[in-house]
């Protein structure tokens, strides 16, 4: 669909880029917060219009069934998070944790992050995709360190170093893919264009492709937060501003996973290359079980949900590793549900931490009594993320378990084991935070509940009823994923 000569793909990139420049220049924070919301809303509309008509595949940018899901999800959560952020930062200014200058920087960086993620998703060039993911990493590093406390700087530095190593390994893998493609496709830009690569992947040098995938799995896997490369993730989530935790968990991990899926497709298209599935299954299971056990010993509420993100990214990677139409469908659904639920949880946690003045679980209690709207929102979110029926995550987890039973019954045992362990930890902590004697300060919260409940409503609806067009759409994507 073309509007005033600008197609929707360009709009998805141009709106955040322009907004970033604008926000860097404007001083007044109330207006900039609104511009931030407006820009993400427009980006979301542009992304939605991609559903009805796609521009032609270019040499640098393209949209297909697979990345369309990711773009719509990214821009939607980008929008709701900006609404949450507008009410969150007001409080941060009052308490003096952020100054107006830093806020200006924060808003500009938020849009740069949206730009980088959208670019990584629509890139039709594996080099461009790499550059975009690097840009996204850089912006989030700066945002994680924005409070400039000792812990925040430590977290940002750790994220920086580990993220850079991941990025570097991913680049080495990208170079190897180019080397593998060069004899077949020839030198130059064509050998890095995704659509060309996938068409002719059958003729690539399989051995080189295998080594490339190992590097890509380690490199982008670091960004997905898969164990044992997850060390940056809990710190980055706990110490940064909560809107950034929501975006990190809900979106950036998905973008890195998307990169991984693209290369998985490339390997699957070459019959001589090793099957990428088992590697992803193993690393996914390890992440799931490791994170499930780690959930028990967390004392910081944001850190706990960060480990829960590792757990769920493990489940999603596992599902895509199992492969086949059903498991891929379940993986996509799980990814969507996890993004919605986890960002809703972070919206609740952000306001709760502001009210209580701490992130320590021990200093919170009885939230459903003191702050019923926030408290019950958190309860709903945690119940959803733990995988209780009838919410969306239960359904996607059920589909993953049943497709595992159908294809590899033995693998279902550790999967279910990990799910149950994680479930127990989350319910245990939820009980402590939401019910019982009220603990900590109980001043009323100045919060916007709309984004949180909007996400939870979507998750609930998806658990009860999935609209047929959505099912058809996801089934198509699942078929693409093989």
């Amino acid at each position: 669909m073309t509007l005033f000569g600008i197609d929707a793909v360009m709009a998805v990139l141009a709106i955040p880029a322009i907004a970033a420049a604008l926000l860097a220049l404007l001083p007044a924070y109330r207006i900039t917060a609104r511009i931030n919301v407006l820009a993400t809303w427009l980006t979301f509309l542009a992304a939605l219009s991609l559903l009805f008509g796609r521009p032609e595949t270019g040499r640098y940018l393209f949209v297909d069934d697979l990345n369309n899901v990711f773009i719509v999800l990214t821009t939607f959560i980008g929008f709701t998070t900006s609404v949450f952020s507008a009410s969150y930062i007001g409080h941060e200014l009052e308490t003096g944790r952020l100054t107006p200058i830093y806020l200006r920087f924060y808003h500009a960086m938020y849009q740069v992050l949206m730009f980088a993620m959208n670019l990584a998703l629509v890139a039709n060039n594996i080099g461009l995709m790499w550059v975009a993911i690097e840009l996204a990493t850089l912006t989030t590093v700066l945002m994680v360190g924005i409070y400039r406390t000792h812990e925040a700087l430590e977290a940002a530095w750790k994220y920086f170093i580990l993220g850079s190593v991941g990025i570097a390994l991913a680049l080495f893998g990208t170079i190897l893919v180019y080397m593998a493609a060069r004899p077949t496709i020839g030198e130059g830009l064509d050998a890095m264009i995704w659509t060309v690569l996938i068409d002719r992947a059958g003729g690539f040098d399989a051995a080189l492709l295998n080594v490339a995938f190992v590097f890509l799995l380690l490199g982008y896997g670091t960004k997905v937060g898969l164990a044992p490369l997850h060390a940056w993730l809990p710190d980055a989530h706990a110490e940064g501003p909560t809107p950034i935790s929501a975006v990190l968990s809900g979106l950036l991990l998905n973008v890195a996973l998307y990169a991984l899926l693209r290369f998985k497709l490339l390997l699957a298209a070459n019959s001589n290359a090793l099957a990428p599935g088992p590697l992803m299954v193993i690393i996914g299971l390890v992440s799931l079980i490791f994170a499930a056990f780690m959930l028990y010993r967390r004392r910081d509420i944001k850190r706990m949900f960060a480990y829960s993100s590792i757990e769920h990214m493990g489940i999603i990677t596992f599902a895509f590793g199992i492969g086949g139409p059903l498991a891929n469908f379940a993986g996509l659904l799980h990814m969507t549900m996890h993004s919605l639920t986890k960002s809703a949880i972070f919206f609740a946690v952000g306001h709760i931490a502001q009210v209580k003045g701490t992130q320590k679980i021990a200093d919170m209690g009885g939230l459903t009594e003191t702050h019923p709207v926030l408290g019950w929102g958190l309860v709903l979110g945690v119940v959803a993320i733990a995988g209780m029926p009838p919410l969306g995550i239960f359904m996607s987890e059920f589909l993953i378990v049943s497709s595992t039973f159908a294809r590899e019954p033995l693998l279902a045992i550790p999967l279910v084991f990990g799910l149950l362990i994680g479930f127990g930890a989350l319910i245990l902590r939820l009980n402590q935070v939401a019910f019982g004697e009220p603990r900590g300060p109980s001043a009323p919260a100045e919060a916007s509940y709309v984004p949180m409940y909007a996400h939870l409503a979507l998750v609930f609806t998806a658990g009860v009823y999935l609209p047929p067009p959505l099912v058809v759409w996801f089934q198509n994507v699942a078929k693409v994923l093989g």
Partner: protein
Amino acid sequence: MRGLAFDISHLLAGSLVLISFTLLYQDRLYSLLNIFALHAFVLSLSVAWQAFIQDAPHLYLTALIAMVFKAIIIPVVLHRIIVKLGIHREIETVVGVGVTMLGGMGLVALSIMIMLRVTPEADPLAREDLAFALAVVLLGLLLMVTRRNAVGQVVGFMSLENGLVLAATGAKGMPLVVEISIAFSVLIAFIVIGIFLFRIRERFDTVDLQALDRFRGERR
């Protein structure tokens, strides 16, 4: 000519691996920086040589970036940061030099075994370049994990990145090499600015105390 071209690029790539080894056993920050400057200098020679034999003029730009930015500006800036922040001149290592060197040899053997095995069909220049590049990347990783000090880690990261540039220029006709090397330079500039602004002396145990007092507030 073909033989000579091959030998020279072989020599330059091999020297990079050797210099990576030298980086591993440096126990003083200044000498670490000097050796790194040499590393970047040899890299820029190697890239320029690739630009010459591949007849790819845009690679001269990458060589120039490596020379000016990594061999001159970054070492000088880091040198001044060390003086300004009063960082300890000696480097704490996690494990002993002997073990590190043995580990390094193992990594080089590993990268040669992997790369030569999987690329029997590629032309010999590219395959050996790739094997050397992987060795430099792995040695850079080893350097990063064996140093506790922020500057040491950054030098490790930069030597790792030199290995990537070596791989990218060795892959004949690869597009976006210049853009990628610029992206990396931006990344490194950010890291170095980060060290300076946040005053990271040892890995994380000292930061600007004033900033801490001002912003810490109600945190914990």
